[in-house]
């Protein structure tokens, strides 16, 4: 202590004050985030800078990988004895991470204020087996975006409230020759396809698992895939959807080549930005539709959380950093990119201003968020379902058979 203080004084006198800050940095945290549009790398760096300014004794190294690499990078680092202190994780991983002791249980660290202030739906993102493995950070679900101008031209008064209606409206747009293939989805052989499928499963009141065994081969699970296949084969859906990820969907929608698109929150403000998009000012957003007699709206829980790894040597500092990243102040400052996890933010004019339509959709969508199955074998199940969706779309198997095969290959 004395020695370091003396060093600081010495350094400050010799080289100016810049050195003082560095000589203070006693803890280094490594954090793994994802490279995406919202929050972008620059946003995360800015949030982190605010933290290190307030805590000059902590230095944080940030690493960014695409979503597709996030899970495997986390697990590999853990398998080789650690490397990260803080990791971003998707809502589908807590089961596996908890079973394999990748993340620290933080249930005891959560304060009353957090418990009361954060939306109950957001907490499900980080929970497994009654315990919490981090803090929710990105609250997200898929919405139905629509191009107001195209709907107007087709004489459509209001956006669809049911999936049935969506098909009818898309057909009207197609028949009027406004667009050949009005709907865009992200159905590439990736997790993105499962998010669209889950949205439909929730609309049809389906179930993924029953008593730990696959239950998607009948009922809502089958109805959902049938809807996808019908939409695809009837030409209402852009056939390239089967190789699209979310960013491809955004490009198509922003170019005015889709009347309807299913996508995450982040598309709203980007598609409304005249520098980015040809359809700025014409973007409508509503919760994903429901099914008559089964649901009002549908939504998938696509949120993500920040957690502390079990290999971290600095859990205290890591938690402090996570608290900063998920604080109401930080979340509100970046609310144009991702909606806050804090309930009271939705009444705050500084948050809602200019995105009232999105907030209105979010209030209903976020409340209806449906989870993807919580099982330590999720990756296997997801891979099997991705294959089923692709096979059914390509006509290689009937939806029933494709789902039966997926159930067999799910490892459950």
């Amino acid at each position, binding site marked *: 202590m004395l020695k370091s203080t003396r060093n600081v004084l010495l350094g400050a006198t010799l080289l100016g004050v810049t050195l003082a800050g560095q000589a203070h940095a006693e803890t280094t945290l490594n954090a793994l985030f994802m490279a995406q549009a919202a929050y972008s790398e620059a946003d995360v760096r800015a949030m982190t800078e605010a933290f290190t300014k307030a805590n000059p004794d902590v230095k944080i190294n940030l690493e960014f990988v695409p979503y*597709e690499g996030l*899970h*495997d990078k986390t*697990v*590999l680092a*853990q*398998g080789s004895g650690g490397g990260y202190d803080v990791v971003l994780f998707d809502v589908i991983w807590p089961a*596996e991470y908890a*079973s*394999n*002791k*990748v993340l620290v249980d933080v249930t005891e660290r959560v304060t009353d204020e957090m418990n009361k202030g954060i939306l109950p739906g957001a907490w499900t993102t980080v929970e497994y087996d009654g315990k919490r493995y981090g803090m929710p950070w990105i609250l997200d679900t898929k919405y139905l975006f629509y191009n107001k101008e195209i709907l107007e031209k087709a004489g459509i008064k209001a956006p669809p409230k049911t999936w049935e209606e969506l098909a009818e409206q898309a057909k009207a747009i197609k028949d009027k020759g406004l667009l050949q293939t009005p709907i865009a989805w992200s159905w*590439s*052989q*990736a997790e993105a396809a499962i998010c669209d499928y889950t949205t439909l499963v929730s609309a049809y009141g389906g179930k993924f698992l029953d008593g730990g065994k696959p239950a998607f081969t009948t009922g809502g699970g089958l109805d959902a895939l049938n809807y996808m296949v019908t939409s695809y084969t009837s030409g209402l859906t852009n*056939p*390239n959807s*089967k*190789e699209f990820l979310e960013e*491809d969907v955004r*490009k*198509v929608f922003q*170019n005015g*080549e889709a009347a309807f698109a299913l996508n995450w929150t982040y598309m709203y403000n980007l598609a409304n930005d005249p520098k980015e998009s040809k359809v700025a000012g014409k973007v409508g957003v509503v919760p994903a539709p429901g099914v008559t007699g089964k649901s009002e709206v549908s939504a998938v829980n696509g949120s993500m959380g920040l957690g502390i790894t079990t290999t971290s040597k600095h859990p205290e500092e890591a938690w402090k950093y996570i608290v900063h990243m998920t604080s109401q102040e930080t979340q509100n400052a970046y609310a144009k990119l991702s909606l806050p996890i804090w309930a009271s933010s939705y009444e705050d004019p500084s948050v809602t201003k200019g995105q009232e339509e999105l907030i209105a959709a979010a209030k209903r969508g976020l409340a209806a968020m449906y989870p993807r199955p919580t099982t330590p*074998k999720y*990756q*296997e199940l997801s*891979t099997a379902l*991705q*294959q089923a969706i*692709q*096979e059914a779309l*390509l006509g*290689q198997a009937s939806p029933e058979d494709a789902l039966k095969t997926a159930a067999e290959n799910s*490892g459950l």
Partner: protein
Amino acid sequence: MSGTWISTRAWLLMLPLLVVMIGVIGWPLVDTVRLSFTDAKLVGTAGSFVGFDNYERIVTGSNFRRALVTTTWFAVVSVAAEMVLGVLAALLLNQRFRGRTALRALMILPWALPTVVNATLWRLIYNPEYGALNAALTQFGLIDSYRSWLGEPGSALTALIVADCWKNFPLVALIALAALQAVPREITAAALVDGAGAFNRFRFVIMPYLAGPLLVALVLRTIEAFKVFDIIWVMTRGGPANSTRTLSILVYQEAFSFQRAGSGASLALIVTLLVTVLAAAYAALLRRAAGAS
């Protein structure tokens, strides 16, 4: 006496290298073999001994058989195309014409690009909505509507093969060009005087010089193509409907995505064995070729 001393000293001098080799190649391989007989997970439990269970499940499973066919097809077609293209490019660049040096430098470029960059580039070219390929083919009237090249099982693997060829044929061309430079001008001139046609000149005069180096290129490329991972992972992740899922992608999913380190190790060893057999067959070919010349 002095002979044994020299060999002892030789061993002593090689010792540091041997230790490093055993450390970075030998030990991991032995450990992989050990792992492959367990049901170990990637994180957490060490796993218990399960004998040949992993191997049995893999070899009898349909995923492995399908991936083996996909991989073999990928390797055979891409390597054959790379060899032909490479030799043709080398023959062209061996001619004297203006701008030859610039063209030679340019040809190295695809091979020098990182695979991930190359894969991303080709994804843009194949993009179903704004890709250059669709635009070009439509303008030439070869297709009447835009296609989803990476979204159709019928074309995805071929599209990947093209991307892989573009990146790797320069290596073959480079090796072939170096061999062509070694052909004495007198011989080709004499063959010309003797009235040998272009094909015969290639077959009987140039080919003997090319055969050895080309075999080396063939071995290198086949082994690499058989292990192909990155270009596919970036472009299709094994889709659509698993039509481009090669053995390496299967290994990756098994070991890292599903975290079954045990069966991942078995699968990796099976792939290693297949590549070793290939390499040994080629080595025999090489020896015969060397003996023949």
